[in-house]
């Protein structure tokens, strides 16, 4: 039986149960995204781009294949057909649906998905972008513990429009955190919520207190780890460096560059750079989790003022 969920402000109707998402409580309108389970039939015409896991067609149609989980066919920013392999775990199917497929839907709908986490501070959202493993989710978890509602984890969706401040849309209401962080924060890891079998990463639901409304983008930190003498430093970024960083942090970057016209991507990036205060947050490669509190406090202080350490 189909159920309706909320994601990014969309009404998502899904044949597959999506317990990670909050139920739809908005207006009674046609669903914005429809997810069905069935046979995937991509076009007979050749794709314009092929990678081992994905193929993209001229109209932006996207086929994702992982032989051990299934195939996903995404079109028009609206329709998702999933063909799981016979013995695929439902949780595995959802990992890629709420990850790669969600990112592709955003590109097809001309939104701007970033490898980033975000929390609400005051009247807007503060975003922490960075490569995998740099600590985006850990920082967001630390800020959540200080009372800042989660807006997004791992993938932050930004709506860039000419007429208003870029808006951060509420993403999926859970965090992906590794066991070392969970241990430190004394958050229990439930076996059934492991990201994929054998991994140290778990899904931690964040339904309580999750921010469900779009928020103006206040500030962005691009997080890097490097060997340096100080525990961390926060430095303003030049526009050129910010543009390069934003392109690098684009979620499903190759798919985005195939689906979205280059001029549009460039416009989104340059608009963000011009309208959003952006900083590099350099974290000392040698810093352990025990210094998380200090780092989170520094972000909190900097976000609320212009004090740089």
């Amino acid at each position: 039986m189909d159920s309706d969920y909320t994601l990014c402000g969309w009404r998502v109707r899904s044949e597959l149960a999506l317990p990670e998402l909050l139920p739809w409580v908005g207006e009674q309108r046609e669903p914005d995204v429809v997810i069905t389970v069935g046979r995937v039939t991509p076009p007979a015409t050749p794709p314009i781009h092929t990678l081992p896991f994905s193929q993209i067609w001229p109209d932006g149609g996207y086929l994702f294949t992982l032989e051990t989980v299934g195939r996903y066919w995404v079109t028009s920013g609206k329709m998702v057909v999933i063909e799981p392999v016979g013995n695929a775990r439902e949780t595995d199917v959802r990992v890629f649906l709420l990850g790669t497929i969600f990112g592709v839907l955003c590109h097809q709908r001309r939104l701007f998905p970033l490898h980033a986490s975000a929390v609400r501070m005051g009247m807007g959202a503060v975003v922490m972008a960075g490569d995998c493993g740099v600590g985006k989710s850990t920082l967001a978890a630390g800020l959540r513990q200080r009372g800042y509602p989660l807006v997004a984890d791992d993938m932050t969706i930004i709506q860039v429009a000419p007429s208003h401040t870029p808006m951060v849309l509420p993403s999926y209401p859970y965090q992906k955190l590794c066991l070392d962080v969970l241990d430190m924060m004394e958050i229990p890891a439930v076996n059934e919520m492991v990201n994929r079998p054998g991994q140290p990463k778990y899904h931690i639901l964040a339904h309580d207190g999750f921010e469900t409304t779009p928020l103006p983008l206040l500030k962005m930190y691009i997080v890097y780890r490097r060997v340096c003498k100080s525990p961390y430093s926060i430095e303003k970024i030049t526009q050129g460096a910010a543009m390069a960083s934003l392109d690098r942090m684009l979620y499903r970057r190759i798919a985005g560059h195939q689906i979205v016209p280059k001029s549009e991507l460039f416009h989104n990036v340059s608009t963000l750079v011009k309208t959003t205060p952006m900083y590099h947050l350099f974290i000392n490669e040698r810093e352990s989790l025990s210094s998380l509190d200090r780092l989170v406090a520094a972000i909190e202080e900097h976000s609320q003022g212009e004090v740089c350490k």
Partner: protein
Amino acid sequence: MNGFYWLASYPKSGNTWLRLFLASLSKGGIPIDINNKQFDTSVGALRLPFDQFLDIESTDLTVSEIISYLPRKYEIEAASANKPLFRKVHDAYLITPKGEPLFPPAITLGVIYLVRDLRDVAVSFAHHLDKSIDQTITMMADPQAMMSSEKKRQHTQLPQFLYSWSGHVESWLDAPGIRRLVLRYEDMVAHPVGCFGDAARFLGMESLPSMVDAAVEAVRFEKLSAAEDANDFVERPSTVTKFFRRGVAGGWRDTLTLEQSARIESDHGPVMRRLGYLP
């Protein structure tokens, strides 16, 4: 033709020393900044390039899936390059779940395989891992041993199967159809100009003898150690106080107990004899 030169070794066998030499030689033998080599010999198993080339989150993949698709990543990476690529690898030369070599032969220009007396490796590796020597000896005999596969956190490198030390050595020495140069750490210590010169020629980095001499001098152990003391070393794990620790051959005699050396020789005798480390 583009492709990869694999700078392959079991851990703590001289790989970093070779890579720093190549960095210096690439600039004509000048002194180098150990934290900014400007000659790419990065780890083949880095997570970020895998994600970027395949447009996927490797953190959403199982170990088996990652290993199955690594050859595709290497193929795409080679196709996108306009010159030969050099990659440090600690992986054993394994066959993936899809039944193909992890390192595709069609894009393998050559392999430099570095070996070191396992008794010295044991001492160095124990320091590197912050484990006891006995624990390290056990790990080196474990055919399922892996790197970057911590149970509690996700590493910036992808998981790498080491096999046992013997398994690692045999996998690389017996890999069919590969152009290969084997370098012994002990020979590099005793005859650095000859060994590093052989490495340079093998990699197509033809250089004047004076440049090889200068590059060998630039990466003398004492200089690397002093550079690390001054400015840290970016490749030093946080659990280790000093990466460039001793840089000698045969230092195990001062450190291993008789039982420990006997255990190593018992576990790995045939391969140690094959490499000339046992009579």
